[in-house]
């Protein structure tokens, strides 16, 4: 049996199990479901606890291993990225290769407006006579970041969303690079030196902080997890509303959707903007915890890794992409010796997954069906 046949078999088994699970789930009453969900959420919050079992899963029991909460935090941040990118790729069907640009804009927003180290803050201090200890409060930086990212999402999308899929991919890739080049070459971003002293919710990392102190990243993880859960709820609401239906309709047959009254362009633009905002939010979290960013953090390889998270995990459904993000973040940390191999492995994984199982690890049923039908069409054609 070929590899694909074996995969098919495994897939069938998985589908049967899934059906059983889904039927049981459907049979539960709403309050019972809520209980399950609450239990799951509780487990997620409890993960950092030292009593949590399975030391072979945790990363901090091996020497030189990363802090477990720190890794969890990173997983949460990248899961948020994956969910945002999923709105663009999985829900609206647009391939965005420059998502790191939005991530960078979010990070730089909190850096440039919140850090005493930033040229922008210094300029504002001078202009408005605010004293050398003034900077924008961390909480205010968030709406600033979201505003900037959504604006850039709209600016990027407006001219490019009418393009063919391949062209859109290249242009978005160029956008990501342009953001990096601007960050690297501009004075207001401190060019290659980067920005230090980026504050968290309580200000820059210091022993005087009550919750967000210097060493233990657990509060960071909890904060990030909370943000992720809230935004997951928000995205689900969108998915199950006319917005999600419009995205699905545009993805399946854009011309028919237009004839049925769906304003395709506007919804695609919304997808871009929402995806951008989520990317920006995760950028804010990332920069706040790191305390320091510079343009080399936001490379093309990172953009490709983001796409890989969505695609390998299973684009179109949030569980899948979150899993993809967690795997691609956690595995390299767990096996730290191989961290330099990560980009190479990401590339290999992309090719292998696309050729053997393009729907990803947790496929959305729609995608699976669509790909299977296309393959059947191809078999029928003998030429």
């Amino acid at each position, binding site marked *: 049996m070929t590899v694909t046949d074996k995969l098919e078999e495994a897939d069938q088994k998985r589908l049967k199990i899934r059906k059983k699970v889904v039927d049981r789930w459907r049979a539960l009453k*709403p309050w019972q479901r809520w209980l399950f969900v609450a239990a799951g959420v509780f487990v997620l919050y409890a993960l950092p606890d030292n009593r949590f079992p399975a030391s072979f899963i945790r990363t901090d029991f091996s020497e030189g291993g990363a802090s477990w909460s720190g890794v969890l935090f990173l997983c949460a941040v990248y899961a948020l990225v994956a969910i945002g990118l999923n709105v663009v790729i999985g829900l609206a069907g647009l391939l965005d290769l420059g998502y790191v640009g939005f991530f960078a804009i979010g990070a730089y927003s909190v850096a440039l407006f919140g850090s005493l180290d930033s040229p922008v803050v210094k300029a504002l201090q001078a202009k408005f006579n605010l004293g050398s200890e003034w900077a924008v409060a961390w909480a205010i930086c968030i709406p600033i970041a979201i505003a900037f990212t959504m604006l850039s999402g709209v600016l990027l999308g407006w001219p490019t969303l009418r393009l063919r899929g391949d062209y859109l991919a290249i242009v978005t890739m160029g956008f990501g690079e342009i953001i990096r080049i601007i960050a690297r070459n501009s004075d207001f971003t401190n060019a290659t030196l980067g920005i230090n002293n980026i504050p968290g919710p309580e200000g820059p990392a210091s022993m005087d902080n009550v919750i967000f102190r210097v060493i233990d990243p657990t509060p960071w993880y909890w904060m990030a997890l909370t943000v992720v859960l809230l935004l997951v*709820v*928000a995205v689900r*609401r*969108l998915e*199950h*509303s*006319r*917005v999600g*239906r*419009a995205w*699905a*309709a545009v993805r*399946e*047959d854009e*011309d*028919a*959707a*237009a*004839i*049925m*009254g*769906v*304003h*395709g362009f506007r919804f695609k633009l*919304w997808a871009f903007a*929402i995806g951008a905002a989520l990317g920006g939010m995760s950028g804010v979290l990332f920069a706040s915890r790191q305390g320091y960013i510079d343009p080399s953090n936001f490379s093309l390889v990172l953009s490709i890794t983001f796409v890989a998270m969505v695609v390998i995990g299973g684009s179109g459904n949030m569980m899948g992409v979150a899993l993809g993000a967690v795997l691609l973040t956690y595995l390299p940390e767990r096996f730290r010796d191989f961290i330099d191999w990560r980009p190479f492995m990401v590339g290999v994984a992309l090719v292998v997954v696309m050729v053997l199982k393009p729907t990803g690890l947790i496929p959305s*049923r*729609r995608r699976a*069906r*669509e790909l299977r039908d296309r393959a059947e069409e191809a078999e029928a054609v003998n030429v």
Partner: protein
Amino acid sequence: MSESPNGRRTLLEVDNVTLRFGGVVALNEVSFNLHEGEILGLIGPNGAGKTTCFNVMTGVYKPTDGQVRFDDQQISGKKPFIINHMGIARTFQNIRLFPEMTAIENVMVGADSRHTTSVMGALFGLPRYKRRPHEISDSNSVLAWLQTSFLISRHKREELDGEHKALELLRFVGIADRANEVARNLPYGYQRRLEIARALATGPKLICLDEPAAGFNPAEKADLLQLIKKIRDRGYTVLLIEHDMRLVMGVTDRIVVLEFGRKIAEGTPDEVSRDPKVIAAYLGVPDESA
């Protein structure tokens, strides 16, 4: 606003429309009017330009010459979704449902075009979980009224209205029993009727049906004939492309005949079936049963 002989106003004017694709002339100075409340048939041999005419009317093509006016407003060259909002809906010759969405979801996409709230409304409305169609109550109970008026946001209200409307339309065309099935898996007859339901959900004044009976057996065609009459009785105007002469003669008020992109005849079914040009082009030897 012009009026037809029996006093109904003109809803659609196709005015000298010509459509050229490079060297091919798909439509050649085609003109006809459609009056409110009537059922107009558009017939002609294969390749005559009937579907092309639909495409021009719904904004898929822009005419090289001439105009299309709907409700006294110029629509030729406007974008398809705008034309739909102005009141024209259609079905397709080769069914174009959203294959991976369920029947009711397909219809709801049509209903969505009448929504006024969008992303912001979806985000900030009150939470609930997704209900299944059998849970959608038809009753106008006090609770339902309370929910829709006070306790729930406009977005939610529009969602609920959309669900009601979708279910009602599925019943109207007779396929409500399979509302939750994925469109791709529905039997052929259901798919055709689903397309009609979806088009009706967009709340049009004019519905254009492109060969809705293709592939049907005589019993199904008879059902469809009744459905089309029901649609007209509800107040919609119908423009119908069809090859089955019995169906066309049985349901239409007037007929327009196209051949090679030109209009060659127009009139009541009787007049058209006796027109020698039409017979020559299309009907061949007059059939007793036609």
